[in-house]
């Protein structure tokens, strides 16, 4: 669940917009460069955005009974890098607020920072760290997705805590409280999302491994050994 319209005071809306805009500009710059060299990338990016939107409108089977949805940003981050993911996320977040009434327009900047920048950045760093090691690729995908999801909610809690500090203990105790409300209920969900996306990955490896090789997510050898494991 994103921060909703009207929840942050206008000063903080402005701060998060200012934080989000350089990331978006960097993303647009990279996007233009990618498209100049490979114009087939545009529809591919488009379908990734569509996929992130569809994923977020599906409700994840959840243990706690609360409903939540996968963010899907981890998969996009390892395919296109964190900055282009920020642009795709910004568009998806705008569509979510106008198609599903999730999130909001004035708080879009704050939501871009949490779901489009910090989450994918964390996921991408984990991916870069583990890509060339002997770690199983399903475990890599699990960690990337679960961490991208977790850090999205940690950042959301931080954004809320900065806007509404506690009287005693200030920002820190307020951060812990919001973390308790959101992030802790998200831990099981982030793990479930990690498992689901690792299974999705297994499905793609089995049926259409050429997608992963073309996107250069994993090397051909890694994919081949993953296919051998399935069969």
């Amino acid at each position, binding site marked *: 669940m994103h921060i909703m319209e009207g*929840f942050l005071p206008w000063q903080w809306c402005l701060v998060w917009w200012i934080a989000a805009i350089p990331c978006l500009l960097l993303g647009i710059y990279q996007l233009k460069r990618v498209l100049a060299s490979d114009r087939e990338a*545009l529809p591919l990016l488009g379908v990734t955005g569509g996929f992130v939107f569809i*994923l977020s409108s599906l409700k994840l089977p959840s243990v706690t009974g609360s409903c939540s949805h996968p963010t899907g940003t981890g998969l996009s981050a390892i395919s296109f890098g964190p900055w282009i993911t920020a642009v795709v996320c910004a*568009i998806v977040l705008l569509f979510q607020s106008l198609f599903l009434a999730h999130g*909001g327009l004035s708080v879009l900047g704050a939501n871009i920072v949490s779901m489009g920048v910090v989450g994918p950045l964390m996921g991408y760093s984990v991916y870069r760290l583990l890509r060339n090691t002997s770690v199983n690729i399903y475990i890599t995908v699990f960690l990337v997705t679960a961490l991208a999801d977790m850090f999205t909610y940690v950042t959301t809690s931080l954004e809320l805590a900065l806007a509404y500090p506690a009287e005693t203990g200030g920002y820190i105790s307020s951060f812990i409280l919001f973390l308790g*409300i959101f992030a802790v209920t998200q831990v099981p969900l982030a793990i479930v999302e990690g498992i689901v996306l690792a299974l999705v990955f297994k499905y793609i490896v089995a049926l259409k491994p050429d997608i992963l090789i073309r996107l250069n997510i994993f090397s051909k050898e890694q994919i081949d050994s993953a296919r051998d494991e399935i069969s």
Partner: protein
Amino acid sequence: MFEELLEDIAQKNGLREVNTYLKLAAGLGAILLCLLSTSYIAPLFIALLITGAILLLARVDAKTYAELFMVPVGFALMSVAGIVLITGGHDIFWHWDIVNGFSLSVTRESINQGMFVFCRVIGGMSAMCFIALTTPMTDIFIVLRQCRVSEVVIDLMMIIYRTIFILMNQVIQIYQAQVMRLGYSTYRESLHSFASLCGAAFIASWDAGDDLIRAMDARCYNGKFALLGENRPVERFPCFAVVLFLTLSTTVVIVSGTITII
């Protein structure tokens, strides 16, 4: 499992033919006024007027409109409860020292603050729903292009927009087929079904993207989508109504000042 997209409603609402800039001015103006107000009265007033416009002028079904508020209001209540407990004050009604340096309390000031944030969410949500329910995305694309947003971004938005509708149909079909075959009967089963649903959606979207580029190449695609814009005239009555609404709301924001609930 799937919400009806507000876009479907927006394509056939009662205010469809009104100039896009007027609708955006009303919606975005209302969001801004809600954020700038310092009392809980102004956002409630704005929410009331906008709800009236959505139900009576745009003729949106009242039940659909109410359902839109269910999830956000639940989330807002939870977060507002947090704000009430941590925001301190002088007039203390209830107090609990958990550990040294961290305590929860309910005070006059914190209740006022909580009420204010909650009303601002209601006001902001209704203003956002006004844009979502009356302005189709296709009209917003035209506005974005006129505002000179980067071409790449608009193209990407249009492709994502198109893909969403293609994928939505496929996902619904697969999901229904899975339910019919008891794919969601146990928790373990539902995880597997959900994963294969997502995987199928990813592969389907990949194929849709490939088909799209081939179809566009066949039609001499040069990296820019043609977009036919309809220019809707600014009519006198809607223009007057928007100006009246914004003036009234601004007056309420100024007059209500810092009035609190208790």
